[in-house]
């Protein structure tokens, strides 16, 4: 891919219900901030990509309504949707459109307003001959896979709780994060309400209303516009069989994420991810998933994920801080969540992470996760 970079990011205030803002208002809030952050004007944007899971809000072609808010009126604008990876897919679509030579600057905006519909029900609107009759939503499906992962790897509820606590403690340093739970403890996680055995309330991501935008620029423009562009070194996608029962122990195997990471690392020249990555923003809708992703992303050997979190390797002061933003476990507007991962990774390269900045971050990882095992892996760095 030809050189492209992220030169601006913007996020809304994320919350359980943003009744104060319409869908276009949310989109505008994030888009305007990204443009301001990039130091450009709206008229500098050549094209717009929108990411959103339209049926969660009961919409069709949502870009038709929110496009103007994303500064897209009279410009090329497409909407991308691939389940949970919608946001990272949208970012990658933006990378491709810039790298193609068609555009110099593309704005990518992801958003979701879960409070306006019934997301858990929306998620069950799958095969009417099959899934719909036996649907239990994201929580139940994850719980099933977690039962396999625990049995296979011997991961404990305590280790998962450590992930849940790490995310929320990091979120305290992120003014945009939805969940703000200063002083949260492992005991609180383990005592929180059981949603689907063994998943507890605090093991799960929240449902958030929010939007996030990034500004993507072509090589020369990026250099002119930004003192420290976040260069896209790699972007890899793998989709998987879409029925949960067809994938053998998905959290254990996670061949999509493994394969996408292998490709991305090769493209970015990374051999030892734990050593060579400075920070990672990974899409972990459930505490246990973060442990599974550690293995699939090559941060540790199989079965070692529990030890990684126990040893604090992925804490803010560890060897590879994972999710300084607080992650999906602290903020989850689905269509925006993938964009947030990329924006937070870019923010680290830009050196604009504020209280959540990882000192001297030069290489950052962002991932997307969706459906049962769809995966996106993106590597950003301070050099093209």
């Amino acid at each position: 891919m030809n050189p492209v970079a992220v030169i601006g990011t913007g996020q809304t205030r994320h919350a359980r219900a943003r009744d104060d803002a319409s869908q276009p208002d949310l989109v505008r809030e994030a888009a305007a901030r990204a443009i301001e952050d990039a130091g450009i004007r709206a008229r500098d944007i050549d094209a717009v990509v929108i990411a959103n899971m339209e049926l969660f809000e009961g919409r069709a072609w949502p870009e038709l309504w929110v496009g103007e808010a994303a500064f897209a009126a009279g410009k090329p604008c497409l909407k991308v949707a691939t389940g949970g990876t919608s946001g990272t897919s949208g970012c990658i679509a933006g990378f491709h459109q810039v790298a193609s030579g068609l555009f110099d600057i593309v704005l990518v905006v992801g958003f979701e307003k879960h409070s306006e519909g019934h997301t858990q029900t929306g998620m069950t609107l799958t095969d009417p001959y099959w899934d719909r009759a036996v649907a239990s939503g994201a929580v139940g499906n994850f719980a099933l896979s977690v039962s396999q992962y625990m049995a296979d790897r011997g991961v404990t509820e305590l280790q998962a709780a450590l992930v849940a606590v790490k995310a929320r403690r990091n979120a305290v340093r992120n003014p945009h994060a939805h969940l703000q739970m200063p002083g949260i403890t492992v005991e609180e996680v383990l005592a929180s309400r059981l949603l689907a055995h063994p998943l507890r309330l605090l093991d799960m991501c929240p449902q958030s209303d929010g939007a996030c935008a990034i500004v993507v620029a072509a090589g020369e423009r990026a250099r002119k516009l930004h003192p420290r562009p976040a260069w896209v070194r790699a972007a890899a996608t793998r989709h998987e069989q879409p029925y949960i029962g067809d994938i053998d122990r998905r959290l254990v195997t996670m061949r999509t994420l493994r394969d996408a990471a292998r490709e991305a690392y090769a493209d970015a020249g990374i051999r030892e991810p734990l050593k060579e990555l400075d920070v990672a923003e990974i899409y972990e809708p459930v505490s246990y998933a973060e442990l599974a992703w550690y293995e699939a992303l090559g941060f540790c050997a199989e079965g070692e994920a529990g030890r990684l979190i126990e040893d604090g390797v992925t804490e803010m002061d560890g060897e590879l801080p994972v999710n300084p933003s607080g992650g999906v476990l602290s903020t989850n507007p689905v269509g925006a969540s993938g964009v947030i991962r990329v924006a937070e990774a870019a923010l680290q390269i830009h050196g604009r992470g504020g209280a959540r900045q990882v000192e001297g971050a030069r290489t950052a990882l962002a991932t997307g996760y969706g459906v049962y095992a769809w995966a996106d892996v993106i590597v950003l760095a301070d050099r093209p």
Partner: protein
Amino acid sequence: MSEPLLVPIEMDQSWRYAATAAMARFCAGLKERRLEALRCDGCGKRYLPPRPVCGNCHLALRDWVAVRDEGRLAAWTVVHVPILDPRSGRMREAPYGMGLIRLDGADTTLNHYLAEQNPARLAIGLGVRAVWREQLVGAIDDILHFEVLR
């Protein structure tokens, strides 16, 4: 600023979904308490429910094999949150057991309800058996749930 206003709109839409030929045959089987899987000519994997194509080998699936209505739990959970049933607009009550069941004769696993709701009595590898409803209509909920074999 005035109070934030919300505009309520109810979705009540109906769709007519066509089944794949394989799913139609599978559903006809259910009506006679018969379970079948489709075997891939390439990798030999036996798919239940039937898929049109093996996603790994990219081959159309044609070879039917018989599957028993008993199998083993490959994964399980007990769900404690009620969920809105999109078909009826009503809430489905909790708790309820869920499992991924590898039926004897199939290689994939079937997502379905479990009669057992006590986590202490559930484990991967347990034998389970389908409990069928009286009036079969040719749908996957002709199986009410799976019960643990003791």
